[in-house]
């Protein structure tokens, strides 16, 4: 057989035919398909043993215990800890997103410095610290030239900030505003705690217990325990607030009162109690209080200001009296920006029932011992009014500091009238310690990113709203930090050393160890067998023993129900009468703005995580436009219908939204969510809706001189 063209072609034809009887073609197609599953850019699972690591959440001040589930040492999910009194197996949407936030594109990957063209360029930690040292050295000795804004309400890190500032000659250590600030105006020492678990009638004024106020997850657990499925409730919950938010919806009764008017209703109830013969002999100012309330807060007056019918007020007073252990919670519906009047008025009801430091009542909790020499007492830091200060600087009444240090806070987004904050910050050297590229970081001259709480050691002391003093630690549960971050405590210590300011420690870990060691000064116990509320009700806990640090750093929760000092409380008649709201109507801005907060929308310093976006309904945001809610009567009065575009205008700012009709908003009010309208962060959280903080307007409360904005008012018009 000669090899000619023909035989070659037949050979090839045979080859082709033969191939059809082999798996080559099918196998190649199959393998090619499988190969496409292995492209390197396709996400891979990591395998390895699964484990849980117990830690504490720092995404908001509630201090829940979290279990971080890991696979092969890599965090994959966050769950609520069942053994932790502040979470009891529960978690909020933001906490559930904790692991995802670790990998968020908005994370700052390392220290950066702002360039002349406004962009941020990476620098080394050594350069960054040298720069910070240089900027602080320039201000050393000048009075109040360095200001710190901390968004961490309850961490020991604030002691380091305050001591460092002290060493530089400054007294400017501020916390972001919250209920703590108002509470501190009423109570000069210690914290206020609320013993929900042992109360049988809970009347919350403003405080959105089940979503965004205080120890939210623990509050939900207490509510759940009091409302067993298929059985009678063991405690009644009444919510007084502008909107039927989560708390208003779950409560046995919701009473709508415009923001800022909660205290009027509280005193309206006091009127009935006093008329009914209740006294408070333990309070020195009882008679002044009695006269003031009975003369001014008559049923007619209260109805005119709040719109609540006199019978309803009388009925509330009757229910409170009938309860065994009534507990009244003061607060504002956004847990910030409320005034002393509302707070003190609601608090005074507790004193009429003599339930201060009693089971099921309000508790005065001690501050945990301070461990950093030179730091200011926490009560003094809590009492400083950041918003009033910022307004003062912007108006030129207070001299502008040279350097701002901003830690876990986003003042250029989350202070009322953020443009005023921007003015107060403009021209000063701005240092951000934020983990994420938030609005403040975007403006900062120097970025010194701190690791997330999943990557660092940190602590939580008695969160506001807790019924007991407590301490727990956050610890690194990841093999190594994901980015080139450095715990802010360590940065502060090393910079202080370079400035010759002795803060007494080499590392932040040592500060925390000292804190734990100092806990032995108080009577405390681990909540493994007995919960703090059980202890308060009489069950004896075993005193904490063994190696405290070893236990707490592995996740044990330390609690104390010790009272700080005998409290001789006053009903606050003076402050209540001085801060009482004027009863004149405001016709320029006739509608009350009821801002709403929820952990679904992130927290004060965290934008909505992508994980939570699917939780937002079509009635909350569509495309880039978000909704404000009003009831049908209000909408009709302004010629609005569902889905109409509307403009809210306050004295200082305005925003655009669509209308959602919801009857769970009181009359002549418009409800709007906080936490939308971010301009920094990542593509997931940016440019969604508008920032309601722009529309919230600061006023000064007469009598207390406190900056308040929870009771802002607006004009609404079709846009």
């Amino acid at each position, binding site marked *: *057989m000669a090899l000619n063209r*023909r*035989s*070659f072609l*037949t*050979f*090839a*034809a*045979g*080859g*082709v*035919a*033969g*191939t059809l*009887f*082999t*798996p*080559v073609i099918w*196998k190649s197609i199959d*393998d*090619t398909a*499988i*190969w496409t*599953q*292995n492209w390197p850019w396709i996400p*891979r*699972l990591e*395998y390895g*043993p*699964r484990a849980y690591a117990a830690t504490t959440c720092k995404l908001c001040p509630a201090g829940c215990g979290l279990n971080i589930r890991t696979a092969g040492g890599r965090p994959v999910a966050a769950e609520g800890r069942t053994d932790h009194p502040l979470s009891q197996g529960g978690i909020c949407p933001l906490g559930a997103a904790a692991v995802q936030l670790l990998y968020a594109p908005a994370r700052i990957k390392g220290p950066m410095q702002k360039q002349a063209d406004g962009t941020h360029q990476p620098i080394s930690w050594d350069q960054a610290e040298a720069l910070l040292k240089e900027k602080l050295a320039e201000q050393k000795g000048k009075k109040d030239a360095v200001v710190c804004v901390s968004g961490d309400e309850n961490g020991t890190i604030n002691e380091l900030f305050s001591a460092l500032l002290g060493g530089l000659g400054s007294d400017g250590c501020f916390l972001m505003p919250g209920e703590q600030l108002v509470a501190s105006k009423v109570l000069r020492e210690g914290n206020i705690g609320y013993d929900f678990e042992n109360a049988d009638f809970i009347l919350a004024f403003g405080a959105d217990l089940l979503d965004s106020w205080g120890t939210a997850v623990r509050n939900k657990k207490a509510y759940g325990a009091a409302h067993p499925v298929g059985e009678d409730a063991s405690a009644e919950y009444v919510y007084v607030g502008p909107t039927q938010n989560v708390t208003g919806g779950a409560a046995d009764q919701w009473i709508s009162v415009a923001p800022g008017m909660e205290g009027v209703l509280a005193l309206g109830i006091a009127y009935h109690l006093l008329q009914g013969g209740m006294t408070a002999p333990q309070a020195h100012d009882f008679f002044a209080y009695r006269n003031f309330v009975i003369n001014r807060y008559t049923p007619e007056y209260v109805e005119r200001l709040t719109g609540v019918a006199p019978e309803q007020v009388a009925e509330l007073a009757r229910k409170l009296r009938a309860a065994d252990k009534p507990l009244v919670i003061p607060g504002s519906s956004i847990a910030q920006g409320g005034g002393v009047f509302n707070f003190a008025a609601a608090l005074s009801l507790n004193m009429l029932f003599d339930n201060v430091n009693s089971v099921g009542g309000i508790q005065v909790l001690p501050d945990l011992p301070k461990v950093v020499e030179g730091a200011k007492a926490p009560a003094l830091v809590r009492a400083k009014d950041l918003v009033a200060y910022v307004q003062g600087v912007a108006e030129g009444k207070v001299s502008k500091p040279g350097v701002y240090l901003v830690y876990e806070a986003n003042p250029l987004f989350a202070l009322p009238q953020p443009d005023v904050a921007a003015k107060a910050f403009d021209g000063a050297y701005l240092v951000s310690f934020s983990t994420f590229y938030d609005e403040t970081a975007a403006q900062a001259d120097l970025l010194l990113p701190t690791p997330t709480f999943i990557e660092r050691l940190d602590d939580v002391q008695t969160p506001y709203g807790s019924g007991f003093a407590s301490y727990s630690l956050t610890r690194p549960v990841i093999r190594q930090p994901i980015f080139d971050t450095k715990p802010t405590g360590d940065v502060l210590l090393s910079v202080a050393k370079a400035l010759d300011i002795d803060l007494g420690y080499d590392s932040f870990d040592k500060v925390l160890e000292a804190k734990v060691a100092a806990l032995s000064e108080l009577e405390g116990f681990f909540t493994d067998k007995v919960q703090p509320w059980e202890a308060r009700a009489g069950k004896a806990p075993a005193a904490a023993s063994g190696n405290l640090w070893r236990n707490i750093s592995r996740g044990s929760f330390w609690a104390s129900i010790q009272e700080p000092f005998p409290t001789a409380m006053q009903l606050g008649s003076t402050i209540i009468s001085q801060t009482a709201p004027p009863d004149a109507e405001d016709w320029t801005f006739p509608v009350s703005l009821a801002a709403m907060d929820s952990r679904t929308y992130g927290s004060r310093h965290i934008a909505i995580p992508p994980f939570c976006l699917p939780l937002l309904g079509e009635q909350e945001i569509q495309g880039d436009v978000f909704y404000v809610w009003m009831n049908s009567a209000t909408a009709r009065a302004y010629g609005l219908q569902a889905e109409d575009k509307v403009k809210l205008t306050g004295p200082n700012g305005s925003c655009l939204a669509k209308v959602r009709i919801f009857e769970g908003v009181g009359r002549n009010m418009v409800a709007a969510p906080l936490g939308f309208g971010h301009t920094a962060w990542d593509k997931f959280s940016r440019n969604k809706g508008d920032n309601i903080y722009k529309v919230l307007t600061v006023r000064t409360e007469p009598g207390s001189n406190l900056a308040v904005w929870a009771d802002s008012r607006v004009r609404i018009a079709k846009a």
Partner: protein
Amino acid sequence: MEEKKGGTSAGGVVLPFLLGFVAALAFGWWGVPQLLYSKKTQPLVFTHQNHIELYGMSCDDCHSFRRDGSFSGLPGNAKCGECHSFPLGDHPDEIKFVEEYYEKGIEVPWLVYQYQPDNVFFSHAAHREYDCATAGCHPDVGSSNELPVYYENRLTKYSRDTMKMKDCERCHATVAAQEPERFAGAPNACQICHK
């Protein structure tokens, strides 16, 4: 002339065709697998047989379920180290295990014959009542003295022994048909296995 030409071509066509056909068969059935798979050997010699027959161990001793029900898969150094924290005997691989892996804290990079692809859920716990080897999922290494050669597909990087979807489906279909009540949860709906 034309006829002759045709005659020659008939005989001349069959042979090249057959040659081509056979060559293709040989290439397809024998050559391609040789080319497609690289052969790898396990990092250490390991005999299941000795562990079972000489030391009376059972599969569960090393391939156990954890308390949370998840399957621990291959034992790690800690498990092996319970007996082999120092060389037992003088086999070079025994010494290598202790010196190169155990003491240095490096896990042995065993080659796994079949990982499930990333796009399926697979729980060993749900399948524990099937004998690993006889159900046809794993090669029967339990009584072997040597670990089989590991064939890695050069294209896909998968092990040649990776289970095919049809194997899962076949078992699910038969088992679910045999005892529909007991295995109500094991039909072949996509979401039963796929993420």
